[in-house]
């Protein structure tokens, strides 16, 4: 168990360091070199050059920064919002609960990334709209998870005792219920980060997310597929990077889930 934990955390830490280090390569990543268009890996560019002769490794590093920034920002925002919605629905019950859950049902009626694609399409491309589209669609899972747990917690004796002592509703929610929800929420957030890395890349792949010349893994894959025949190293480098990060985060999620004995509701995936 500990061995595996080290492996996943090592990969994730590596990508975080790469993302931080990429700040120093920002300029280099956009430098066009028309003499080295689609060159295979060489000493100047360890992973070769792209269709404008830019250094794939440098762009890959900036892409890691983009992916992690988007994933972390969106998960922090949606985790807070979704948990708040879930707590309110689960604590108050009744029509509040029915209304909020009806809304989540509508959001869940759009499979996978479809709604984010739709939002990004009408909002237009760019980082801000990408963040907005992902935030609008990713809070639902947290809301459902929190609500289900809060429903059960509401009748626990320590919550009833707090109520009897006259604790305020926010105090009960945040001091008496939220701490017991942390384990499942962190597990959910871990999986969600992996999902968001994929979602960001998907939208950028479709041309709806990060715009050129800024580097993102999805945009790089989009360019790479165009030159698959003559420069397979381009797609392979980006694909393997994305896969290693997503795989490590997912496995970390599994490990946390097993370690904390969290039972997940598969219906929400």
């Amino acid at each position, binding site marked *: 168990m500990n061995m595996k934990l080290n492996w996943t955390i090592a990969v994730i830490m590596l990508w975080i360091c790469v993302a931080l280090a990429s700040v120093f390569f920002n300029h280099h990543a956009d430098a066009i070199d028309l003499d080295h268009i689609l060159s295979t890996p060489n000493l100047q560019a360890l992973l070769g050059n792209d269709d404008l002769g830019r250094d794939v490794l440098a762009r890959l590093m900036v892409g890691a920064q983009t992916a992690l920034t988007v994933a972390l920002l969106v998960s922090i925002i949606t985790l807070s919002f979704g948990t708040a919605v879930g707590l309110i629905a689960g604590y108050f019950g009744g029509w509040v609960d029915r209304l909020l859950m*009806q809304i989540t049902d509508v959001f869940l009626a759009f499979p996978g990334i*479809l*709604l984010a694609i739709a939002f990004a399409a009408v909002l237009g491309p760019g980082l801000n709209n990408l963040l907005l589209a992902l935030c609008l669609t990713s809070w639902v899972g947290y809301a459902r998870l929190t609500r289900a747990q809060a429903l059960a917690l509401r009748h626990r004796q320590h919550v009833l005792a707090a109520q009897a002592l006259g604790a305020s509703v926010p105090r009960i929610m945040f001091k008496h219920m939220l701490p017991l929800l942390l384990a499942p929420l962190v597990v959910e957030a871990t999986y969600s980060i992996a999902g968001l890395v994929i979602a960001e890349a*998907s939208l950028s792949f479709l041309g709806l997310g990060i715009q050129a010349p800024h580097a993102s893994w999805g945009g790089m894959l989009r360019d790479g597929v165009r030159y698959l025949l003559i420069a397979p190293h381009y*797609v392979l480098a*980006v*694909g393997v990077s994305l*896969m290693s990060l997503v795989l490590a985060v997912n496995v970390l999620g599994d490990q946390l889930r097993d370690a904390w004995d969290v039972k997940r509701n598969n219906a929400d995936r």
Partner: protein
Amino acid sequence: MIKRLLGVIPVVFGVLLLTFLLVHLVPGDPVDVMLGESATQADRTELRADLGLDRPLVIQFATYLNKLAHGDFGRSIHTQTPIANLLAERLPATASLAITALLIALCLGLPLGIVAALKQHQWPDKLATLLSLTLSAMPHFWLGPLLMLVFALWLGWLPVSGMDGVASMVLPALTLGFGLAAILTRMTRASLLEVLHEDFVRTARAKGLPERMVILHHALRAALLPVVTVIGLQLGSLLAGAVITETVFGWDGVGRLLVESIEKRDYPVTQACVLVIALIYVLVNLLTDFLYARLDPRVRFTV
């Protein structure tokens, strides 16, 4: 059963409302965005009147619903073709791709999951887990090009993209199917492991049934029930995944229609594609629930 059926109505209404509001989320004037800078004032006024954007929101929504009820999805701004025709043209391609992908996923995922559960902690289990973890970390826009690279460009066995015959369907269907196979493997394994500890399995063993009968007749029947629900839910992600897979392989289905319409800013088509995919998903989930009730003697919807 009727209760479940009634529960769908507000969801469908919400889906209609949300897709209707999509066009109103466009920053600025949607007509300007759709027609571009060079359009004449007359064109703008005409399109605005055509889409009903000059009328109050409630009336617009009522007209939208009324038209949909008559099977009228509006017209494409780009080609003036009725959108219903476009959808009818593209849906069969997506349906055949999704169903083939589902079959591939079932043929791979179920046996792998069963073997993994029966040989828990041994090498087949470890291999299946490794495989499913890796596959679920490979989004369609990476798995697709990878398969293309290996089977179409290096080995030359299959066409790179396009839609000529069965051979061209293999790679997109595998791309879509592998991801689902990974999920099914994990679900089947977990579900079967849980069931193997149940009393009825112990009873079946205790009365001296051969192990094969115990697994096939008693354990599997119960273990596959939750998998049915997952298949229903995942068929939706197949449809969403088709958007990307169809784009990668140039497969002319609804997903590609959606992406093309976004690129051309043909919002009525975008709207219609999103709506149709969501409605199919809702319908499939409803059918899955009924199927589940049929299969599981313990579940009965109250009438």
